[in-house]
């Protein structure tokens, strides 16, 4: 449990630069050897509104956000109005001297004294916050040099001067806040969010194609692939709509690309038709769905776990699929890598179901190990064994996948019911043979299911069942719970298919099983009931657009237990 952790919340209007300050401070904290976890809350607008960037910083690994604030950095008066009551005992307010912080434990930044012009006010804020949480000045200096290096020495020097002044200014202030975290041993950690980790996992798997239509909160996956992959040969295209994105990726995959699409619920609804096409044409594809609350436009920049059913039942007709639900950036990386292997092996769409909270949540992460990653399956480029049949019926349902253009064999992909040689057929025997062949691939996918992780005591009084990034809130709630019941947590990072022999005993051995999900209808509990018959009537559900926190889980527990 993160005994020693503080929560820094930077608040302001969109366009004021709170994300820039937040990212720089996060990186400085990571480089200083501390752990961190970022929760971003923002409104669907480019200017104005009220946004927050919360950095939870600690000596130990952090799994979730928290609601109480230790340092409130206000870029405007609205931040003070909205969040002052969340600042805990001994908490510190950091704000410009022009804002009313009378009577508060506050650092009142004299921006005009520290900075020659408003352009550098955010650098001053960074210096003040960096000093307040005891980050070495040299780390902040290095960061600014890297950030502004492209803009020339003059800009770098001007920023450094403001940084140093602001940093020194704090030392002279009389405030009642102390933070001196031991730095952990493993420096050289990465700082990245869920979307970036998905992009990197895809690159590590050899992904060399992305087609997308921008949609918050999923766009970061494509941005990562373009920024990091395109210089290495990845092909990309921002297309006219999500229908095109999915069909284009299918065409690319058919012709030999390792393809990914990324979207959120509404865009995915448009992709569904082509999910079905990928299934029947047996084209490998990795589809990333980063959830936000619906229905329809819903809360475009907030978080929810309400599109499990959408993905689970997507596409007309029956087709094999697997759905991963990462809890952390590490999961995002390794599960996306795995998704490419499964997609190619079983020639069917594989889904990564993330959500806004994880997509935007920066963490410090041990550098991913590229050397130990398993080999990703690949298609055939040559065919030497007689007539090639794209949809040959086999025991495991997997037909050899040949890429067109590398041999004289013809590769014919089709969306109808077809014969082994791709010819359209309405014959009932052919129909059953081909449908059964495709669905036999589910057996292979079933064999490869990653089972849930169990945390805590055996035979608990109450077992919390969760999936995706809700894990952190459940684990911290379990640790902080001080009642007289014993607790445990069961977490699913793969939500489909489910293998009951991997978890049914856990459910049956607990006195009570409590479902914890970020939606209103307990979709995962219903899926478990569908697959196993096990019912979970006790539920802690959150659907206000905010991420699950340990406080929310504890409150739910106190109502149930």
């Amino acid at each position, binding site marked *: 449990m993160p005994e020693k952790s503080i929560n820094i919340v930077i608040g302001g209007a969109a366009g004021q630069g709170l994300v820039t300050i937040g990212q720089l401070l996060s990186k400085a904290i990571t480089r200083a050897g501390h752990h961190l976890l970022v929760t971003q809350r923002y409104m669907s607008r480019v200017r104005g509104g009220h946004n927050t960037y919360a950095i939870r910083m600690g000596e130990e690994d952090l799994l979730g956000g928290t609601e109480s604030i230790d340092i409130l950095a206000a870029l405007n008066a609205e931040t003070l109005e909205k969040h002052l009551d969340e600042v805990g005992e001994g908490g510190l307010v950091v704000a410009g001297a022009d804002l009313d912080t009378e009577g508060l434990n506050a650092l009142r930044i004299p921006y005009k004294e520290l900075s020659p012009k408003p352009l550098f006010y955010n650098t001053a804020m960074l210096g003040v916050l960096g000093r307040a949480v005891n980050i070495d000045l040299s780390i902040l200096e290095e960061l600014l040099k890297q950030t502004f290096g492209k803009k020339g020495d003059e800009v770098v020097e001007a920023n450094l001067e403001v940084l140093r002044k602001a940093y020194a200014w704090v030392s002279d202030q009389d405030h009642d806040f102390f933070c001196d975290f031991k730095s952990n041993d493993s420096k*050289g*950690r*990465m*700082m*990245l969010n869920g979307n*970036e980790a998905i992009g*990197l996992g895809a*690159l*590590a798997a*050899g992904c*060399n*194609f992305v087609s997308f239509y921008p949609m918050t909160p999923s766009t970061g996956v494509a941005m990562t692939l373009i920024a*990091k992959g395109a210089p*290495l*040969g990845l*092909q990309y*295209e921002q*297309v*006219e709509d999500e*229908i*095109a*994105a*999915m*069909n*284009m990726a*299918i*065409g*690319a*995959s*058919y*012709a*030999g*690309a*390792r*393809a990914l699409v990324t979207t959120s619920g509404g865009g995915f609804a448009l992709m569904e*038709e*082509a999910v079905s*096409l990928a299934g029947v*044409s047996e084209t490998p594809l990795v589809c990333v769905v980063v959830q936000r609350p619906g229905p329809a436009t819903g809360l475009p920049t907030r978080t929810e776990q309400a599109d499990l059913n959408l993905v689970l039942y997507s596409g007309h007709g029956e087709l094999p699929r697997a759905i991963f639900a990462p809890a952390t950036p590490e999961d995002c990386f390794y599960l996306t890598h795995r998704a490419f292997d499964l997609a190619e092996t079983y020639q069917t769409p594989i889904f990564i179901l993330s959500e806004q909270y994880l997509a935007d949540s920066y963490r410090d992460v041990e*550098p*991913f190990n*590229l*050397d130990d990653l398993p080999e990703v399956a690949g*298609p055939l*480029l040559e065919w030497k064994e007689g007539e090639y049949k794209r949809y040959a019926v086999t025991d495991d349902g997997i037909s050899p996948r040949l*890429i*067109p*253009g*590398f*041999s*004289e*064999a*013809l*590769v*014919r*992909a*089709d*969306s109808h019911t077809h014969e082994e040689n*791709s010819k*359209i057929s309405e014959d009932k025997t052919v129909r059953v043979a081909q449908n059964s062949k495709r669905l036999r691939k589910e057996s292979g996918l079933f064999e490869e299911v990653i089972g849930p992780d169990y945390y805590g005591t055996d035979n608990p009084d109450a077992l919390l069942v969760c999936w995706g990034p809700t894990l952190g809130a459940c684990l911290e709630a379990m640790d902080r719970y001080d009642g007289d019941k014993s607790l445990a947590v069961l977490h699913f990072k793969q939500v489909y298919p489910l293998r009951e022999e991997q978890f049914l005993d856990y459910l049956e051995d607990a006195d009570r099983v409590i479902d914890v999900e970020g939606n209103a209808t307990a979709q995962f509990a219903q899926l478990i009931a569908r697959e196993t018959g096990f019912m979970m009537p006790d539920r802690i559900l959150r659907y206000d657009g905010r991420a699950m926190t340990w406080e929310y889980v504890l409150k739910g527990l106190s109502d149930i237990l």
Partner: protein
Amino acid sequence: MVSIEEYGEFETAWCPGCGNFSIIKSLKQALAEQDLAPHDIIISSGIGQAAKLPHYIRCNMFNGLHGRSLPVAQGIKMANPEMPVIVTSGDGCSYGEGGNHFLAAIRRNMDLTVLVHDNQIYGLTKGQASPTSARGHVTKAQPEGNRSDGFNPVATTVAMRASFVARAFSGEPEHLVATIKEAMAHKGFSLVDILQPCVSFNKVNTFAWYKERTYILEDHDPTDWAAAMTLSEEFDDRIPLGVIYREDKPVFGHGGRLAEHGYDKNDLKAVLQSYT
């Protein structure tokens, strides 16, 4: 030299007298005359009677969804830029269900050849108005006559300065073969809008109707945009056939064949390092 026989002969689901027979024969001939073997090309199609074409010709194919032949074709082209990609579908598939993809594909200007079998009617669903049916065209679904203006694909593509715009007619096979070859030789997005009769469901725009009106262009300069624009409006008593507009413009860039592409592990390690 590749012979037309290598492209095979197949039983089809088309009605006797359908314009598709002439179009597929002309396509096979155009391919053979370019010395392209069946494994050298890919045809992407959607859904409809015209879109069944790749099932009746030996070659690589992706027969996808109604309206989606262009996105699939563009994905194929990005993954394998060396391979000629031909798109073949009807007017409903290309201009109706796939309308947004059509406009975007023109702007993107990949090196594709798009053959639209334009019979001004929905055939496979038995005779409803299509995007190119004229206003007033009576069908069972439009008993009081089509209430929308007909879509003019040639005028639209010329207005957008598409890289290559041509019109052909299934009843002029020699001209059709030459036009397909010219479209395939052109670098960039090439549209050939091919007029064809639907003998079962279009009782207005019949073979005779097209035959009376169409004429092959002789003195038109396809690089003259204003002249092409004027010509593209001509679709009543006289219908011009030939290359209406042509402009050499930047073709959508691409790398090599993605099936052979991999990352160097040290490059990937450097990417990870950029996050520390």
